[in-house]
């Protein structure tokens, strides 16, 4: 059975949830080999093993962490050369896609981005044109390189051997040309990560800048908070909260859009959510065309009342 390389997405050793989804997918395709690029694998190793990693390649990042994308692509290219894997799986973050892109050129392989599912083959499923079409595809040359969106699989806990192997990569001077001169970590919000959350509650122009009703409702549901482009452009919420074509694409179990009209730009970012609810004062708002349930009303009245009701039911 061939190895399937999975690039571990972590922050200082804390593995992010989509990596466990990738390991689960890797299990369908072959033997999962996690690739950990960092300074200390000890906190991650047990988790990677618990989610199926048979091998964990450990790559010290001293020469890597200060440069954008290129060194990680070199590491993976060298591992591809060494292990001749059945596929390489990377999360579909901006960085992940850029690493995949450069890896494809280096290894003369095809690359598929933003897969929402990967089955044996490997055959990928993508959701395209604002979710209007589903596409099945495969790589036809080289080592399949696939970037996978969060929520593509339910992570399964199946112990792998988790055998660690140190891998000494050679980083060229050419890869060290885009220097990361400063890095400020994003503050933890205490809420689930937007692209990984099961429930997302978003606010738009209709909030008038007051996101409190949205946030309190999100908290009642244990949800992540999102924002429309209008809300971000108005400076009410940071861009990292933006759901839409130029922000994040989410596909949660439940998406609640509040004071959001539903322009195509926004729909592109949430149209494939399993259940969609909208609250909007305007009964003509295009968002209502998408909903499983809608309320024509003022979110400033509806959400607080709904929040109270939900909290009461929770007891």
């Amino acid at each position, binding site marked *: 059975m061939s190895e399937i390389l999975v690039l571990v997405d972590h922050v200082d050793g804390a593995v992010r949830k989509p990596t466990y989804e990738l390991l689960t997918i890797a299990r369908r395709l072959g033997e999962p080999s996690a690739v950990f690029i960092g300074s200390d694998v000890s906190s991650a190793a047990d988790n990677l093993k618990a989610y199926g990693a048979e091998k964990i390649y450990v790559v010290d990042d001293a020469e890597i962490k200060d440069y954008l*994308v290129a060194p990680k692509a070199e590491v993976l290219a060298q591992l591809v050369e060494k292990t001749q894997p059945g596929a390489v799986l990377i999360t579909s973050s901006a960085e992940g896609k850029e690493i995949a892109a450069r890896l494809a050129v280096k290894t003369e392989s*095809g690359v598929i981005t933003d897969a929402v599912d990967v089955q044996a083959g490997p055959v990928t499923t993508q959701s395209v044109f604002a979710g209007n079409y589903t596409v099945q595809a495969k790589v036809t040359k080289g080592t399949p390189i696939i970037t996978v969106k969060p929520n593509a699989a339910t992570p399964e806990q199946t112990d792998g051997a988790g055998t660690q192997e140190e891998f000494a990569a050679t980083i060229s001077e050419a890869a060290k040309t885009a220097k990361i001169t400063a890095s400020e970590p994003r503050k933890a919000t205490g809420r689930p990560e937007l692209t990984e959350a099961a429930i997302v509650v978003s606010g738009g122009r209709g909030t008038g800048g007051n996101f409190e009703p949205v946030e309190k409702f999100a908290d009642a*549901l244990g949800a992540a908070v999102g924002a429309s482009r209008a809300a971000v452009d108005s400076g009410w919420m940071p861009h990292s909260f933006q759901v839409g074509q*130029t922000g994040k694409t989410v596909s949660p179990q439940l998406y609640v859009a509040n004071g959001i009209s539903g322009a195509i730009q926004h729909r592109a970012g949430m149209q494939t959510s399993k259940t969609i609810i909208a609250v909007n004062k305007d009964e003509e708002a295009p968002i209502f*065309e998408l909903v*499983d*349930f809608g*309320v024509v009303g003022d979110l400033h009245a509806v959400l607080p009342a709904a929040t109270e009701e939900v909290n009461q039911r929770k007891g």
Partner: protein
Amino acid sequence: MNIVVCVKYVPDATADRHFEADNTVDRVGVDGLLSELDEYAVEQSLQIKEKLGDDSEVTVLTVGPEQATDAVRKALQMGADKGVHVVDDTIAGSDYLATSLVLAEAIKKIDHDLVVCGMASTDASGGVVPAMLAERLGVPQVTMASEVELDGQSVKIRRDGDTATETIEGTLPLVLSVTDQSGEARYPSFKGIMAAKKKPVETWSLADLGVDAGQVGLSAAWTAVESTEARPPRTQGEVVTDEDGSGAKALVEFLASKKFI
């Protein structure tokens, strides 16, 4: 400073975007336009040129079907100085790799210090071509910029990632890509629209680039689409009007019925 800004002609997102029988995107039967995210790339290129205030030139480059000249024209109307349109039937159906190859070879034939791209196209939303260009050209990749600063031979950007906000720096020549947060893109002025009519646009074929037909197009692609399926449009469920708290009650009932609470 010579700036090459890469733009893409894409099907209008509000039109009926769909696939041909060979599973390639229909780029001809659907109205197209300059990809909105590339407007930001054109804007930042123009701002760099304006800040330098010298004889810097902005060349807009695209690879696309005949109609892709519309994208070049829009960029010229915004203020770019000249255009290059690579058009060749054999390129149709190219994947990211062939597209980046053709762009890279075209860029090499244009006097350039800086290559600027948008963060992703609005049709494929790949966001991978700029990184591939940097790889192919052997230059620094300074990408996904929400803020750009040029200081002599150095480009410094703010990149807002998932987990951190980073400052990235590279030395020219390099590939820069900019997000929709990098600054509002200007509308062409009437003067700009008229001036664009006189600006030179060169048309290049694959042969002009020295690229072999066997390296591009659908048959050369390193990925294959096996099938495409239109998702059935979502049908509208129940929509109620809020009256004295009835909306909230109905909403919570719905959540309970679906076991969200």
